[in-house]
């Protein structure tokens, strides 16, 4: 992966800054909050009920927080915001998070 966002000084005024990434790119933001590696977690969407790997979720980054959306129905499943007050984690759009033991690793 190699990604970047345009500056506000770009010819389009940084209009591309809403770039959609995936959960792999968002994993660093979640890694300090969850105990394990986020990308191997299976997340069930609270809206449509589809389960998908965290790494497959749509990730919206570059704003004040990181928002994860369901790849099937685009409903928000989770978000993280880092503020001077503290770190906000909102998982209200998801119904479950399945943490599998990593095979062959302690």
């Amino acid at each position, binding site marked *: 992966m*190699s*990604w*970047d966002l345009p*500056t506000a000084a*770009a010819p389009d005024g940084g209009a591309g800054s809403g*770039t959609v990434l995936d959960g*792999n790119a968002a*994993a660093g933001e979640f890694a300090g909050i969850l105990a394990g590696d986020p990308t191997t977690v299976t997340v069930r969407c609270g809206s449509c009920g589809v389960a998908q790997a965290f790494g497959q979720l749509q990730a919206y980054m570059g704003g004040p927080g990181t928002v994860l959306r369901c790849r099937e129905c685009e409903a928000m499943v989770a978000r993280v915001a880092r503020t001077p007050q503290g770190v906000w984690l909102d998982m209200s759009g998801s119904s479950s998070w399945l943490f599998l033991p990593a095979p062959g690793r302690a």
Partner: protein
Amino acid sequence: MTDTNTTEGPAGSSVKATPPARNHWRKATLIGVRSQSQHSRTLVLRVPGWTGHLPGQHVDLRLTAEDGYSAQRSYSLAEPATPGRVAVTVDLLPHGEVSPYLVEIMQIGDELDVRGPIGGWFVWEPGDPSIGDGPVLLIAGGSGVVPLVTMLRARKRAGDSTPTTLVYSLRGPRDLMYGPELEEMSADLSAPGSAEVRLVYTRKVPDGHPRPASHLAAGDIRPSSSWPEPSAARVYVCGPSGFVDHATRLLREAGYPDDRIRTERFGPTGVDR
């Protein structure tokens, strides 16, 4: 897990648990650069305390301006694990906020912050029991080739003989990353660590290349004649979102179930690389 929170000391004594490495920013110093294409380069960073990573993982890089403004981006690790050392290959986004600095301005000795390694899903560790004897199909769009080449390098270093094919979609010859290395890796398919490489040019084809310019198609992901099985045990796809969606569609049409496909998407560019 890719890191451990408790380690055994030299005399077997338990060492105090360190904070989880993935979310811990470390100071990194640029110690080497290598041009990879006309708009990308590999940065080699010295990162004290870096204990290693798995092929396919990435790091977050953070740049901080004098006024305190900071920006962070994710880049795939470009080399197999070496203690104290991290390499990333950065593709230039014109008018990007971070990549022009990393590709054109940053000099040896300059510092930035690194966090990682991150991710355990888009990873191929040689010997992975869920892959067995393979084969493995790697599909890259543009700079999505970086983590896949790291997988190929790790496989070669480990002496792993899993049959592997890399399908690499790119716009034209000037966009080719790792050209000499891929040519060497695919020259003699009986050599250890070799892999079949299929270059899929989408706009401009170099002289003598057999395939005309067009987008990735069903024929490009066909099984290799060297595979013992008619389909791959695992497929890794990395590239821009539109490219990954297109490749995933082709794989489903070819009969691949979703649980054999692992994807990593990035960037705003479209399907054509």
